[in-house]
């Protein structure tokens, strides 16, 4: 009897790698756009950003792109030496050791977990708006909470069962989303120019591109939300890896998707400020969360449901695509003994990490209900808190990149700029933003709602609470099981950096 194990190699390309030249221009474009879910991001942050910085919203959205671009370079180069295995958790552990790695993994998992509630919330509210039901009406909040929880439950069940929504359908939805956003912006600006605005319009001015116009606490608050809006964009950068010739389809699509994203964000910001005017926006300060919905009705009239529907589908689709990575990070941490092994359990029939998936959903659900009930503006407060976590783990990744590549920084000018200086400057900017925001948020006057928890702003309380819980869990687990803490930091494999050797990754399975 022969008995042997083998990894079949008849299909030379492992399924985890995009085949060279296998993705079309449109595919690549869509992947790049889908990663940030522009319709949801805009619906969630444009109101608060306009509330904070007024006419300078376009400038703030442009400025927050700078640190993101620098950190994306770090993601690109780390992914090159440690392919697919990872994200921040794996990279930071390798570069800077287990303590920093664990905190990075915790931050990235919690951002995933915490955003699920607000994604579901936006998904439900805009679905209701599509059918002309006002989710902001008096007494509707319990219904919104119940529906959002139901949505999280259903989507988690779908993730556990492992059913895959059609990729083609998702692609079509993304194109519709971006298209309807651009149509919204175009119609709004057209009506401003032709003096047809139903509100007190202002003529667009280039000075709106100045991010420092409003200054101070408003700027850091706005930039932090801008970081949230671009969150996820770094994954589209990896597209350029599919081809060394950046002039060919996928590389070009990566550039295009970034360009479209920037144009969409900035033109929608311009459109909203120009169409409604600062006076209207100031008078409707209480509507911040709903401003996007109100303005789409003002601008598009009877056709507003298209924009509502695309925001809703964007949010719902993102809920699902957020649960999967969050549960996989937990799985990865459990497999390296950084979390209890129960989170690494795989369902024998569905083949998904069902324990970590349900855990993610449970924490997300509890979090969402608690914040909705105690905060005056749950969405805004959680997004600002999330942005603190995102800034933290992005900054950590930027530093990890320079540290992991430290022996190659001086090889050539490109390495020095793209792997060393760029990511470190990006980390510095995000670190500055983090420190400034913590200072600003310590004064409840600066939080949007002006609400005070323990004498400081709610987002800071939320952010600190997550870190403290993380540190307590980390120390507890360190005392219980020290195996993960035996991992030692290393450096990037020189052979892989020079391109002589493929990165250790998915080519085979340990036998």
């Amino acid at each position, binding site marked *: *009897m*022969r*008995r*042997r*194990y*083998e*990894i*079949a190699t*008849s*299909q030379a390309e*492992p*399924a*985890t790698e*995009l085949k060279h030249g296998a993705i079309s221009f449109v595919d690549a474009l869509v992947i790049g756009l889908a990663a940030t879910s522009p319709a949801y991001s805009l619906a969630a942050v444009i109101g608060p950003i306009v509330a904070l910085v007024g006419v300078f919203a376009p400038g703030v959205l442009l400025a927050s792109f700078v640190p993101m671009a620098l950190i994306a370079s770090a993601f690109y180069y780390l992914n090159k030496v440690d392919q*697919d*295995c*990872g*994200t921040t958790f*794996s990279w930071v552990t390798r570069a800077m050791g287990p303590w920093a790695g664990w905190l990075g993994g915790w931050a990235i998992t919690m951002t995933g977990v915490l955003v699920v509630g607000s994604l579901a919330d936006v998904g439900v509210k805009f679905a209701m708006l599509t059918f002309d039901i006002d989710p902001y009406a008096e007494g509707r909040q319990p219904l919104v909470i119940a529906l959002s929880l139901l949505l999280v439950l259903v989507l988690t069940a779908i*993730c556990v*069962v*492992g*059913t*895959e929504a059609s*990729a083609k359908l998702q692609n079509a939805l993304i194109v519709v989303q971006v298209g309807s956003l651009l149509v919204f912006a175009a119609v709004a600006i057209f009506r401003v120019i032709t003096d047809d605005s139903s509100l007190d319009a202002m003529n667009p001015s280039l000075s709106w591109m100045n991010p420092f116009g409003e200054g101070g606490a408003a700027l850091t608050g706005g930039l932090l939300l801008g970081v949230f809006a671009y969150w996820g964009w770094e994954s589209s950068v990896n597209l350029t890896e599919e081809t060394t010739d950046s002039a060919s389809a996928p590389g070009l699509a990566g550039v295009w998707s970034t360009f479209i994203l920037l144009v969409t964000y900035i033109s929608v910001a311009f459109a909203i400020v120009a169409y409604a005017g600062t006076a209207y926006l100031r008078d409707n300060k209480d509507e911040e969360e709903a401003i996007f919905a109100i303005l789409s009705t003002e601008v598009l009239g009877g056709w507003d449901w298209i924009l509502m529907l695309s925001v809703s589908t964007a949010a719902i689709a993102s809920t699902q*695509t957020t649960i*999967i*990575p969050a549960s*996989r*990070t937990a*799985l*990865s941490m459990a*497999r390296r003994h950084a979390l209890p092994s129960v989170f*690494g359990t*795989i369902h*024998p*029939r*569905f*083949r*998904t*990490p069902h324990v970590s998936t349900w855990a993610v959903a449970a924490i997300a659900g509890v979090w969402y209900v608690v914040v909705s009930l105690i905060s005056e503006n749950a969405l805004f407060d959680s997004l600002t808190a999330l942005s603190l976590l995102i800034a933290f783990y992005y900054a950590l990744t930027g530093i990890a990149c320079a540290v992991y590549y430290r022996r190659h920084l001086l090889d050539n000018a490109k390495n020095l700029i793209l792997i060393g200086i760029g990511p470190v400057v990006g980390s510095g900017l995000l670190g500055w933003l983090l420190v400034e925001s913590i200072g600003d948020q310590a004064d409840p006057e600066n939080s949007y709602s002006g609400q005070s928890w323990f004498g400081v702003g709610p987002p800071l309380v939320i952010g600190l609470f997550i870190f403290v819980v993380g540190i307590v869990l980390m120390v507890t687990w360190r005392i219980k099981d020290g195996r993960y803490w035996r991992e030692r930091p290393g450096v990037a494999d020189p052979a892989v950096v020079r391109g002589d050797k493929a990165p250790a*990754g*998915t080519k085979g*399975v*340990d*036998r």
Partner: protein
Amino acid sequence: MSIVLGYDESPGAKRALTMAITIAKTFDEPLVLVYGVAPPGGLGEEFTSHEAALAEMAKSALDHAVEEASAAEVETRVEVRPEKPAQALLTSADAHDARVIVVGTWGESPLRGAMLGSTPHKLLHLSSRPILCVPAAE
């Protein structure tokens, strides 16, 4: 020719294993045990961890199956493929010129099977070779 079996540790698969061993013995052909380790849910972060976890499961499941088959004196071959289960079975079936592909079923309603993306359901539509569906014991 050979007999190709899609095997995991589910109760349906156990009964399918017994059936596949019987067929392999009857035709005196080798039995190919196939396990696709590509995680559901497509690409994404930490994909590799998920795949590695599945490969570990595959190893323990297939070890048991190989023991049973060798007890019955059937020549056995094991293939762990980096593909989703249905695709892995189709690739192996072509590679080994399968007489029949044997899979266990759960007795799901057709609608549920279609919605959940059941492997037998996919195979029936995609395969050019005969499929033998073995229901789990009641």
